[in-house]
């Protein structure tokens, strides 16, 4: 899929994807720009961003682990923390629905998933761990898109959206550590 997108609006004008999405669209476009740049993106302060989770900043030692170790840690991730991430993610969706912006949300998610599904593709179709990591990162991208579009301030998914775009999988608090997995270069 070609990026950046140009959209033809209802009046036949060519506008950017950000403009077509309306408020929050610029933040969505920034996120997707970063996703397309992938691991090549420089200047990402991984250590700081990893602690700024979608459920709030945590004060835990950071553990950078392999993909396999990340999947193992995902199985032990703090359930209360994950429920809070889910709650905030749903809150952003509900805010958009309440503002009658379902259509823009669906468009933003559609384009984001078109871009992300291929870029975060598990290179080996039989590799279960790679599928787990890819699914988690897609879920975070979707959360980051909805959060950005909703105009949430501060944006709970901003830090982890950047990490995912830069090729990382922030797993979550697990066994007293904040676990971050390197997924390798984003295709």
């Amino acid at each position, binding site marked *: 899929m070609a990026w950046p997108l140009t959209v033809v609006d209802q009046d036949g004008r060519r506008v950017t994807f950000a403009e077509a999405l309306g408020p929050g669209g610029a933040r969505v476009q920034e996120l997707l720009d970063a996703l397309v740049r992938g691991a090549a993106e420089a200047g990402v302060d991984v250590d700081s961003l990893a602690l700024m989770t979608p459920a709030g900043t945590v004060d835990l030692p950071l553990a950078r682990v392999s993909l396999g170790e990340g999947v193992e840690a995902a*199985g032990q*991730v703090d359930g209360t923390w994950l429920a809070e991430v889910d709650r905030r993610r749903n809150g952003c969706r509900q805010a958009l629905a309440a503002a009658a912006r379902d259509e823009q949300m669906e468009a933003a998610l559609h384009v984001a998933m078109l871009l992300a599904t*291929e870029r975060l593709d598990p290179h080996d*179709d*039989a590799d279960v761990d790679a*599928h*787990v990591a890819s*699914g988690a990162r*897609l*879920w975070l991208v979707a959360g980051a898109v909805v959060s950005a579009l909703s105009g949430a301030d501060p944006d709970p998914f901003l830090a982890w959206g950047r990490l995912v775009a830069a090729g990382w999988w922030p797993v979550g608090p697990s066994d007293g550590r904040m676990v971050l997995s390197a997924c390798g270069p984003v295709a």
Partner: protein
Amino acid sequence: MTAAAFPGEVRDAAAAHALGPDYVRAVGKVVVSHVRNELAGAAAFDEPAIALAPGPKEKWLACRIAMEEYGHHLKFQRLASDLGLGEASHDRALSVFDYQLTSWAEFVVLKALVDLAEVVLMEELLATSYLPLRHLVVRLLPEEHFHVSFGKAHTRELVTDPAALPLVQRAVDDLVHVTVPFFGRSVSVNNDAFRRWGVKQRTNDEARAEWAGRCRQFVEGDLGLRFPDVDRHWNG
């Protein structure tokens, strides 16, 4: 013309149209059925499964699978558009997609058995006369195989708990029952046209029997459960 009378390969949409509307109609019906089913499957089963997952790992796997199925829908839709068939997603999906998913156990059995039906249909398209469809299926089949192996692995895990056996058996019974019509009627004008034009090679009954045989092997051989009787003939 019989099935054997069309040994050719059709390289693109223009060549399909050059063969005439009967060919376009035949290949179009097959493509559109996948457009519809991939979307219906993602919406009815894979997305709801994300919320039913018992833990984070299962949740992330369900996410990935949902996105892959949706991606398949879009890729088949592109093929339909190339053939000039327009938007196909609004057509009625098959009755199997009316199944109400209520548990993770049902979801994993569904991936093992119902996705295997999709695999059986796709495998046949590896020899289809319409090359864009053949090439697409070559790309998508590894993902479909992963979905089935995911379903089988998690179902095997479930049956290690004796308490889960009745739930798994019920899911098998229900899902086999609703998947039988997925292959179409025994007497099918559409299937006759598919074979006449080399879009497919098998009758609906042959495909149904192939699926039932592979399912039986898994359910009885791997799980040690009972596989319900499946009549290869089905006429609604």
